[in-house]
Structures are given as C-alpha cells and as structure tokens.
C-alpha cells in the first residue's frame, strides 16, 4: 500500500517537473507580458492625470466666463437668485391652477433635488454629472456655472432624458436633507423679497 502511494507521489512529482520544463518558460513569458501591459496601462493613466495641475487663475477666468454665459441664457432675475442662494430653482409645468406641483434645486456639481412645490417636501435626489473628457490636461470638471447651465438646459429641454441618465436616490444620499430644506426656506424668503422689491414674482423658468 505504502509502495503504491510512493509510486503515485513520484509519478506526480515527475509529471509536475515535466510540466514546468515544458510549459514553464511560456508561462513565465505570459505572466511577464501581463505585468508589462498592466504597468503600461497604469503609466498611461498616471500620465493622463499627471498633467492636470489646477490653476486657480485659469479656473477663476473660466468661472467668470461661464457665469456670463449662464446670465445670458437664464436671464438676470434667475442669475441673481443663483448668485444669492448658491443654487438655481427650476419648476415643472403648471397644474390646472397655474401653479407647478414640483420643482428641482440645481446645485453646482451636486445632485439635483426634486421637491413638492406646495409642501416643500423633498422627493428625490438625482445624481448626474457632465464630465468633459476632451482635454485631460484641464480635468473633467466644468466650471460651476457651466454645470448649472447644463443641468438647467437639459431639464428645460429634455427633462425625461436627463432624469433617465441620472441615478435616482432617496433624499439624503449625498446632500443633507436639513440643509436642502433650509435652502427651500431661503428660496421662499428670497422670492418673497424679490416680489416686494421688484414687482412680478421670479419665474425661474417655470414651464408654461
């Protein structure tokens, strides 16, 4: 019995040795090639990112330029709201009574938040981004005002398409719900103030 086991082990050792001799060089070459390719990919990724060095001056100029575009598109009233509040409200189409039932808060580089326009209850968070991969040297991040404008145009022009592209979550996934509720209160106060000082209520792109 012991002899049989010894023969079996010996045959196994011999077979393994033959395999190492026969396939070992090819196996080693394959492993080395995979390592080399993985290293090249890693270097390429580092090189692509490595040139991106944030330049505060350039980014500030880009932001100012983006703000001018945003102002030109959404108009001075809504732009003033964005500057004052740090986010831009957009409302859905009006119901039979002429008032919208829901709206969104657009934050720069943060999720969209939908809310019930009557109760101010938060409805959902929509995580969506517009990464610009055209020039790795400048990073993928659009200026804040461009990000807000992209969301605004996509919501106004193709709300369903944008929402379909986004990842939907319950409120609180990325944004503090209490902070968003405070923002909605600030929006209400700001709108009331604008109403008393400027006459007509701010429209913020309410669909008609």
């Amino acid at each position, binding site marked *: 019995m012991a002899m049989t086991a010894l023969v079996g082990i010996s045959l196994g050792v011999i077979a393994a040795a033959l395999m190492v001799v026969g396939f070992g060089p090819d196996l080693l070459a394959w492993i080395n090639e995979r390592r080399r390719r993985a290293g090249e990919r890693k270097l390429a990724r580092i090189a692509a990112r490595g040139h991106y060095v944030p330049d505060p001056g350039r*980014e500030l*100029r880009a932001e100012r330029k983006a703000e001018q*575009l945003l102002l030109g598109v959404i108009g001075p009233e809504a732009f003033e709201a964005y500057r004052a509040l740090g986010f831009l409200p957009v409302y859905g189409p009006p119901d039979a009574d002429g008032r919208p039932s829901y709206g969104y808060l657009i934050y720069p580089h943060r999720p969209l938040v939908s809310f019930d326009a009557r109760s101010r209850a938060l409805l959902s968070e929509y*995580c969506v981004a517009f990464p610009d991969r055209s020039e790795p040297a400048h990073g993928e991040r659009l200026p804040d005002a461009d990000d807000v404008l992209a969301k605004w*145009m996509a919501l106004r022009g193709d709300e369903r398409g944008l929402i379909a*592209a986004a990842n939907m979550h319950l409120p609180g996934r990325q944004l503090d719900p209490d902070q968003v509720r405070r923002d909605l209160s600030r929006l209400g106060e700001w709108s009331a103030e604008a109403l008393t000082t400027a006459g007509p209520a701010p429209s913020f792109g309410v669909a008609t």
Partner: protein
Amino acid sequence: MKLVRMKSGYGDVLLAEGDVDVAEDEERLVEEFRRQLDLGLWAAVPTATPGGRREAVMVRSFSDVPRDADRVIFFPPAAGG
C-alpha cells in the same frame, strides 16, 4: 449664429460663427454642428417666450435649430453620478 461649447478650464469656447442666410456660412455651421454631435456632445438652443420667459430646446440636427437662434450651446452628455 454662434456655436459655442462648454469646456473644462475655459468656460465656453467659440466653435463657429456665421449667418445662416449665407450659404457658405451655413455649410460651415452645419459641418461644425455635426462634428460636435459626432463627438458625442449634447446641443441646446436657449430660447425666450414672448413674455420673456427663458427656455431651452435640445436639438439633434441642425435642421432643428431655429433659424433665428443666436447660439447653440454644446456640452458633454450627462452621466449618472
């Protein structure tokens, strides 16, 4: 009409400008429009209602762009964050 594109590190950049009623200009605008869409960008045309309300229209073809539009804005496509 101006074709502009949002770009990281720049703000918006002017891609092409011309009069759509001039054949050569229109051809150039159409060519640039197609090039940007081929790159995968989204295109929107800002509009305003007679009452002054600001809106935007997403366009997928140059023929969708209103002839009197001041500008078409290209921006990267949305991705789930």
